[in-house]
């Protein structure tokens, strides 16, 4: 456990969190094991509501692993074991009472590679609401589809071809379709696992713009390899290294004045 937050940072943190921003996700001593191998060591972090939190760090540092703990995506891996607690609005998601299916309806996810279903654009969006019984087929569903696509900034581009396959869109459009699909089930939190790593700069800019808009309604956690992206979109950042959370704080502060040597080395490009 090497999280080091100096006195001044604590004050800055508290200032940042004061007012509208309550804690949405509170992780405490989260460790993840793949079989015998420990991938994450005692991560304790608070993620504030309606802000963008960026996880940065070199490959294999555990940032994606931690992200996937929040909506229990790691459950699908047989050998994966998670200890510690992650509370969303005060309820531990690893509690036996929590149904992972309901959890994932509240915590949407966007993946590294755009992965629309090989179905129509409409069905891509409608699938989530349909399985959760959130809307009946027909005009009610049409409304949800339109609202989700609008919120993802994709409506004007696809409104005339909702019946065409989602896989026929460009990479950037596909990724925004995936974001719209996540939005459609009306989650509180959206997890994004390197959402722009497969996109060109223009598509990336659009997605980043979208992330900035979504912050008003959703708590967003984004894993990214790109320092610049973290700086552009996030309000808070957390630096992971070799399975440890090294440092966490306001993005601006971390990028200009990191308190840990490793963070500084990574940000300045000495490794990673």
């Amino acid at each position, binding site marked *: 456990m090497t999280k080091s937050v100096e006195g001044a940072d604590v004050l800055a943190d508290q200032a940042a969190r004061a007012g509208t921003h309550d804690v949405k996700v509170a992780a405490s001593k989260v460790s993840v094991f793949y079989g015998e191998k420990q991938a994450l060591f005692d991560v304790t972090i608070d993620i504030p509501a309606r802000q963008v939190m960026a996880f940065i760090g070199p490959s294999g540092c555990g940032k994606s692993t931690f992200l996937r703990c929040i909506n229990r*995506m790691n459950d699908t891996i047989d050998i994966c074991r998670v200890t510690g607690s992650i509370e969303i609005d005060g309820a531990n998601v690893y509690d036996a009472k929590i149904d992972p299916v309901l959890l994932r309806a509240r915590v949407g996810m966007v993946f590294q590679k755009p992965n629309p279903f090989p179905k129509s654009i409409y069905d891509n969006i409608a699938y989530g609401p349909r399985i959760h019984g959130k809307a009946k087929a027909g005009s009610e569903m049409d409304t949800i589809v339109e609202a989700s696509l609008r919120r993802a900034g994709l409506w004007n581009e696809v409104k005339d071809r909702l019946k065409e396959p989602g896989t026929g869109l460009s990479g950037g459009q596909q990724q925004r379709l995936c974001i719209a699909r996540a939005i459609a089930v009306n989650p509180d939190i959206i997890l994004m696992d390197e959402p722009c790593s497969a996109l060109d700069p223009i598509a990336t800019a659009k997605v980043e713009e979208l992330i900035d808009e979504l912050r008003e309604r959703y708590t967003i956690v984004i894993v990214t390899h790109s320092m610049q992206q973290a700086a552009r979109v996030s309000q808070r950042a957390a630096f992971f290294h070799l399975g440890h959370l090294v440092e966490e704080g306001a993005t601006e502060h971390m990028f200009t004045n990191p308190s840990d040597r490793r963070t500084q080395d990574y940000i300045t490009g000495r490794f990673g």
Partner: protein
Amino acid sequence: MSDKSAATTRTGIWYEPDASLKRRYAADKRLRMYGVAAIVFALSMLAILVGTIVMTALPAVTQTHVTLQVELPAEAIDRSDPRSASYQKMLADTISRLYPEVDTPRELRELRQLFTNNAQYMLRDMVVADPSLIGQTVDFTFPMSDIGDQLHKGGIDRNLPPEQRRINNDQIGWYDRLVEQGRITTPLNTGMIFNADSRFPELAGLRGALVGSFYALLICFLVSFPVGISAAVYLEEFAPKNRWTDLIEVNINNLAAVPSIVFGLLGLAVFLNFFGMPRSAPIVGGLVLSLMTLPTIIIATRAALKAVPPSIREAAIGVGASKMQTVGHHVLPLAMPGILTGTIIGLAQALGETAPLLLIGMNAFITAAPDSMFNPSTALPTQIYIWADSPERGFTSRTSAAIVVLLGFLVCMNAIAIYMRKRFERKW
């Protein structure tokens, strides 16, 4: 890299190929020649095989028929019961009128040998189907017997000394007279498809075998498709990865390699002897074939499920689909083309399988097509087996013709499988 060799061998202009390069090209060329030679060899073997079968089958495409004017006297046939009349006598009268000089019983028997044995029943069926014919003289066309058919198609060499052929000089003379009178025709041999089996090659057909094979494959599909998919989905998507599932997997793979005759013995012991199911019935054949097809379908389904990219599963789970919904809504539909391809190939294998059907008695001699899957029946491969074993000359070409029919079905099924694979192939 090649600095050293360049330094040692380069003497002429730089673009002149040196000896080592020539050797490399020669080796490339040789290797390509080996490949081409192998393919030419394989293709010519296939061509010889198919060519021989087709050539042998050709005589069975037509059947020699003879047309006689048969008198159907009103006083000999009871209109209320046309079945009971003696059509044998009417035919005999007709033949006697044609050949007034033939009168000894031996000669009459030899004369009748030119015509199919069942002609009287065909005449009866014709009259029963259309009683208005009674009292008229009708053109009655019916098959020649095997020796007549062979003589007409050149299967019997008339220049051989009489004791070396199955037909004597008198019979050849009577046949020649029929030809002179224009009574001999060779229409398309539809009986080959629409007749059931018979002791007489001129009457034998594949209907029973086709219906039997259809029922057996239907049963095979209905059993092995759902069971195979369920087993594969469970093993691939739900089963915990432990020693037991490993053991099951190894056993399924072994099952696919078990010789088919062993499945036949199993079917004999379990379905016939233990459960007391009917012998020779397509339902038992189908069940035995489904045992054989199951591992093929399970293996194909698992491969198809594995080929569905994990990103689709993640996407479904990410929006809150349960495991069952993920599989049912996304993974299985995407794997379906692969599953169907594997199933068709499995069924094609089952269609050609002979050994297990022999053991459960589907090689019985049955002269009627089965009404249901519980009736005794043959199947295509066992029918080929039966005919190949029959001594009459006519069965030689019919065996080959049946093989052509079987191969035709197999080629069609495989073509459908290939078409589906191409049509639904997905690039991720």
